[in-house]
C-alpha cells in the first residue's frame, strides 16, 4: 500500500509557460478546478526567454496582411509538412489571442496611431510580430501570470481561498502520467505522479484531464539556447502513457546563438537583430546570404544588396533581404561558411547591426541584446559586430494531437499544447510563430480538457490503482539505491557524466547536418547510455537535490533523443530542420509522410525503446491550396497531388 498523498482536481496542466498558463486560465474560466504543476518557480518558465515577438496577422503596420497570408508563410516555412488544419487555426486565431493579452494588462510597443506595433521577421511577408523591445516572452509570461493571480483574487473574494479553483504547484515535477489501467496503452488518463523539489515529498493528483505543456528537448544537445527545464518531460510522459510523437526528426537550430566565450555558447541572439536591419557577413566581409537563396524562395528575396537595403523603407516595390530567410536556411548557410574556412575567430560568422542603425536606436530596440553582449562577452553591439553561430533552439516534433481539440492520439484525457505538441510547424518553425502557437493551442487544450472533465460525473472518473503509485515511487527513488548487478559494467554511474555524454553524442551525431552511419552510431550509444542511466546513483537525500533531479530527467532525455535519431535516420531527404548530407535534396514523395514514434518494450536489434510508424499527412483543403501559385505548388507537391487539384 502506497503512502503517497492524493488530491483530486478537474484538470491538471503540466508546465507553466505560455501554453500551460493559457490552458489553465481557460479551464478555470470555464469553472473547472485547475492545478498547474511546474518544475520552476511560477513566472520563470522558458517562455521568458522568447525575444522577438508574437506573430499575428493584425495588419496594424501593413494592411495587406491577413490570416491567409500568415497561413501561407507558415506552410512555406515548414516546407509544406505542417498539419494544414493546425496552421489554419493558428493563423486565424492568433490576433484574438494577442488582443486578449491587452485586456489582461500587457503593454506592447505601439504604432504611431496607438495600435500594437509589428516588426519584420524571417519568413513573414509583412511586419507581423507584436513585441515589447526584445523581451516579448517576458511580457507574455508576466501577463498570463498576472491573469492567473487576478483569477485567484476573484476566488479569494468568493471563497476566502486563493487556491480554491486555480493552484500552482511550483517547483514540482511530474514523473508519470497515471492511467485507469496501466497495462492498457489506450486506457483513460487518471492523473499525474509528482515530487516536490523543496522537500522531495511525493504526491499524486487524480484528474480526468491532463494537459502537457512542458516545452522542448534542447537539453539533450550540448550547444543550445534552452534552459535546464527542457529535458523533454512531456514528450516522454506521453510516450510512456501510450501516445505517439510525430515529426521528431525536425529540430530547429537557430542560426544566431552566441559563440564566445565558451560558457555562454548557445545563448540566443534574437532574430530581431536581422528583422531590424542587421546583416550577416563572413570573414571576407561578404554578405554571404545572397549566395544561399534556395530555388523555392528565389521569387521572394532580393537579388542584391541594393534591393535588400531599399526594402526596409519601400517593402512594396522591393524584395526582402535573404538574412530574413527561414531559420533552417540561414543556419545551414552559416554552417557552410564556417566549414569553408570563412568563419569568425571563434567559429561563427559576423552579425552586424552597428553600421546599420544609430546607437540610440539599437539600445531602444534591442536592449537585452545590448546588455547581454556587454555583460557576458565584453562586446558593444552599437560599435562592433557580434559573433554568432547555430544553436539548438526548438523541436518541431511532439505529441501527435487532434488539431481542433489538442487531444493526444489514442489516450483519452491526455492533451498537449505548445512546443511539446507536434504538427503545427511542419519541418521548420518561423520565428514568432511559437508564442502565438502557445496562446492559440494552449487555450484550445484548456477548453477541451475542461469540457472532457465537466462531462464526467464523480462516479465516472477514472482512478489509478495504488500499484501504479507504488511503481512510480519505486522508479523515482531508485537512484538512491540503484540495482547492483554482477559483472564488470555494474558500477554506479554519475548522472552528470551521462548527461554530458548524451549531449556530446546528439551534438556530434544527430546535429544540424546528419548522415546515416552517424545516426546508427548514435542509436547504439543511446542504448548503452540508457543501460548506464539505470544505474545512475545520487548522494544525499531527497530535499532539493539537483543530482537526483537530473538522474530522473535522464530517462526522458534519452527517450526523446532516441526518437530524434530514429526518425532522422528513417527520413532519407532534407527538409526544414532535418538536413541529410547523404540525401541533400527535398523529395516530394516524403512530403505526405509523417513518422510516428511509439514506445516499444520489445527492444529491437539496437536495444532501442522506440519504434516508427508511417502515416499520411492530411491533404490541404482546396481553398487553402488556392493561396499558392501552381508553379510554387509543383515544387512541393507530387505530380499526383497537383493533378488531383
Amino acid at each position, binding site marked *: 500500500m502506497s503512502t503517497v498523498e492524493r488530491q483530486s482536481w478537474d484538470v491538471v496542466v503540466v508546465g507553466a509557460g505560455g501554453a500551460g498558463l493559457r490552458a489553465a486560465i481557460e479551464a478555470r474560466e470555464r469553472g473547472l478546478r485547475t492545478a498547474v504543476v511546474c518544475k520552476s518557480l511560477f513566472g520563470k518558465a522558458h517562455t521568458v526567454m522568447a525575444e522577438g515577438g508574437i506573430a499575428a496577422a493584425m495588419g496594424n503596420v501593413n494592411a495587406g496582411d491577413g490570416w491567409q497570408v500568415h497561413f501561407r508563410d507558415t506552410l512555406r516555412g515548414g516546407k509544406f509538412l505542417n498539419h494544414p488544419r493546425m496552421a489554419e487555426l493558428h493563423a486565424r486565431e492568433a490576433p484574438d489571442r494577442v488582443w486578449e493579452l491587452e485586456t489582461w*494588462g500587457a503593454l506592447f*510597443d505601439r504604432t504611431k496611431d496607438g*495600435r500594437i506595433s509589428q516588426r519584420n521577421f524571417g519568413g513573414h511577408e509583412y511586419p507581423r510580430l507584436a513585441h515589447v523591445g526584445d523581451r516579448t516572452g517576458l511580457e507574455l509570461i508576466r501577463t498570463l501570470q498576472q491573469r492567473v493571480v487576478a483569477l485567484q483574487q476573484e476566488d479569494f473574494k468568493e471563497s476566502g481561498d486563493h487556491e480554491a479553483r486555480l493552484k500552482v504547484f511550483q517547483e514540482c515535477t511530474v514523473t508519470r502520467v497515471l492511467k485507469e489501467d496501466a497495462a492498457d496503452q489506450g486506457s483513460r488518463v487518471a492523473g499525474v505522479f509528482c515530487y516536490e523539489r523543496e522537500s522531495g515529498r511525493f504526491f499524486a493528483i487524480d484528474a480526468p484531464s491532463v494537459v502537457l505543456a512542458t516545452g522542448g528537448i534542447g537539453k539533450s544537445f550540448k550547444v543550445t539556447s534552452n534552459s535546464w527545464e527542457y529535458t523533454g518531460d512531456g514528450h516522454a510522459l506521453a510516450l510512456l502513457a501510450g501516445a505517439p510523437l510525430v515529426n521528431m526528426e525536425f529540430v530547429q537550430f537557430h542560426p544566431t546563438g552566441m559563440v564566445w566565450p565558451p560558457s555562454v555558447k548557445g545563448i540566443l541572439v534574437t532574430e530581431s537583430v536581422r528583422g531590424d536591419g542587421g546583416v550577416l557577413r563572413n570573414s571576407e566581409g561578404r554578405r554571404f546570404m545572397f549566395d544561399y537563396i534556395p530555388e523555392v524562395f528565389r521569387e521572394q528575396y532580393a537579388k542584391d544588396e541594393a534591393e535588400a537595403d531599399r526594402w526596409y523603407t519601400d517593402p512594396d516595390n522591393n524584395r526582402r533581404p535573404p538574412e530574413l530567410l527561414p531559420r533552417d536556411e540561414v543556419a545551414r548557410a552559416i554552417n557552410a561558411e564556417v566549414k569553408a574556412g570563412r568563419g569568425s575567430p571563434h567559429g561563427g560568422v559576423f552579425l552586424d547591426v552597428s553600421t546599420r542603425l544609430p546607437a540610440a536606436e539599437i539600445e531602444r530596440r534591442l536592449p537585452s541584446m545590448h546588455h547581454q553582449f556587454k555583460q557576458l562577452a565584453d562586446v558593444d553591439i552599437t560599435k562592433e559586430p557580434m559573433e554568432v553561430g547555430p544553436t539548438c533552439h526548438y523541436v518541431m516534433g511532439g505529441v501527435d494531437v487532434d488539431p481542433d481539440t489538442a487531444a493526444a492520439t489514442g489516450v483519452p484525457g491526455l492533451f498537449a499544447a505548445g512546443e511539446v505538441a507536434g504538427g503545427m510547424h511542419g519541418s521548420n518553425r518561423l520565428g514568432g510563430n511559437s508564442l502565438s502557437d502557445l496562446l492559440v493551442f494552449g487555450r484550445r487544450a484548456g477548453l477541451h480538457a475542461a469540457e472532457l472533465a465537466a462531462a464526467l460525473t464523480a462516479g465516472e472518473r477514472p482512478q489509478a490503482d495504488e500499484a501504479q503509485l507504488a511503481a512510480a515511487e519505486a522508479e523515482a527513488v531508485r537512484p538512491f539505491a540503484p540495482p547492483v548487478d554482477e559483472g564488470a559494467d555494474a558500477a554506479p554511474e554519475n548522472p552528470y557524466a551521462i548527461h554530458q555524454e548524451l549531449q556530446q553524442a546528439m551534438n556530434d551525431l544527430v546535429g544540424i547536418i546528419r548522415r546515416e552511419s552517424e545516426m546508427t552510431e548514435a542509436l547504439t550509444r543511446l542504448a548503452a547510455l540508457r543501460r548506464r542511466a539505470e544505474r545512475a546513483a545520487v548522494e544525499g537525500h531527497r530535499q532539493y537535490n539537483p543530482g537526483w533531479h537530473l538522474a530522473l530527467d535522464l530517462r526522458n532525455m534519452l527517450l526523446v533523443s532516441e526518437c530524434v535519431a530514429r526518425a532522422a535516420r528513417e527520413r532519407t531527404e532534407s527538409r526544414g530542420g532535418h538536413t541529410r548530407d547523404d540525401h541533400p535534396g527535398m523529395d516530394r514523395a516524403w512530403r505526405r509522410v509523417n513518422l510516428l514514434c511509439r514506445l516499444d518494450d520489445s527492444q529491437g536489434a539496437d536495444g532501442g525503446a522506440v519504434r516508427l510508424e508511417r502515416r499520411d499527412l492530411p491533404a490541404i483543403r482546396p481553398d487553402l491550396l488556392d493561396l499558392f501559385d501552381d508553379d510554387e505548388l509543383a515544387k512541393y507537391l507530387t505530380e499526383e497531388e497537383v493533378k488531383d487539384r
Partner: protein
Amino acid sequence: MTDTSTSYDAHLRVWRGDAGSGGLEDFTVQVNEGEVILDVIHRLQATEAPDLAVRWNCKAGKCGSCGAEIDGRPRLMCMTRMSLFAQDATITITPLRTFPVVRDLVTDVGFNYTKAREIPAFVPPEGVAPGEYRMRQEDVERSQEFRKCIECFLCQDVCHVVRDHEENKQAFAGPRFLMRMAELDMHPLDDAEAQGLDRRRAVTEDHGLGYCNITKCCTEVCPESIKITDNALIPMKERAADRSYDPLVWLGNKIRRRRE
C-alpha cells in the same frame, strides 16, 4: 574547445546547510575564460558536490532564478563574471538573506508570491473591446520600464525595511511590488478608479510605501537597471501625497463613495 592556458583555480566559500543549521564550506574549483559564478557552481555539482542545491533556469539573465549574495552583495549568479574578482581572492557565496533558507543556496521566496497576490490586478476599461486599445508609445513607456522586471527579488532581498526586520514583512510589499503598484497606476488604460479602487491610497495604506526612505539600494542591485526609486517609488510617493492632502480630491472621493 576551452582554452586551458587561461584557466586557473578559484577559491570559493559556499554556504551549505538547511533551515536547521549550516555554515561556509571551502572549495577549490577550476575556472575557464569568460565564465560566470553559475558555471563554477555547476562544475562543483558535477564533481565534488553533486547534491549542492542551487536554483537556476535560463543562465542568460532573463528568468531571475539564480539570485545569491556574492561577497555579501545580491547578484544573479549567471550574470556575474569571474573576471570581476581577483584570481587569488576567496569568493563567498551565500543564500539571499531576507528569505528563509530551504537548502544551500536555495531560499523560500514565498513572501514575494504572497505580496503579488495582494496587489489588485489590472482593471480593463469598460466598453473598450479587445483590439480597440489605443495607447501612445510615450504613455506606455513608463510602465514598460517596470515590466522589464524579471522578478529575481534581489531588490526585495536588499531592502533594509525587511532585510533585518521580519516584523515589517506583514505591512510592507517591498520595492518590486510597490513598483508594480506604480506600473498599474501609470498604465494608460487601467480603470481601477471606476471600480472604486484607489491605487494611490492603497499603496500607502495597504502596501507600506511609507516605510521606504529612498536609500536606493533596490535600484543599485537591479540587474535590469530599472530606476525603481527614481521612476516608480518617488513618483508614487508624490501621487499618494497629492491624494492625501488635496482637499478637492478628498471631497470628491467622499462623494463618490457615498454614492456607491
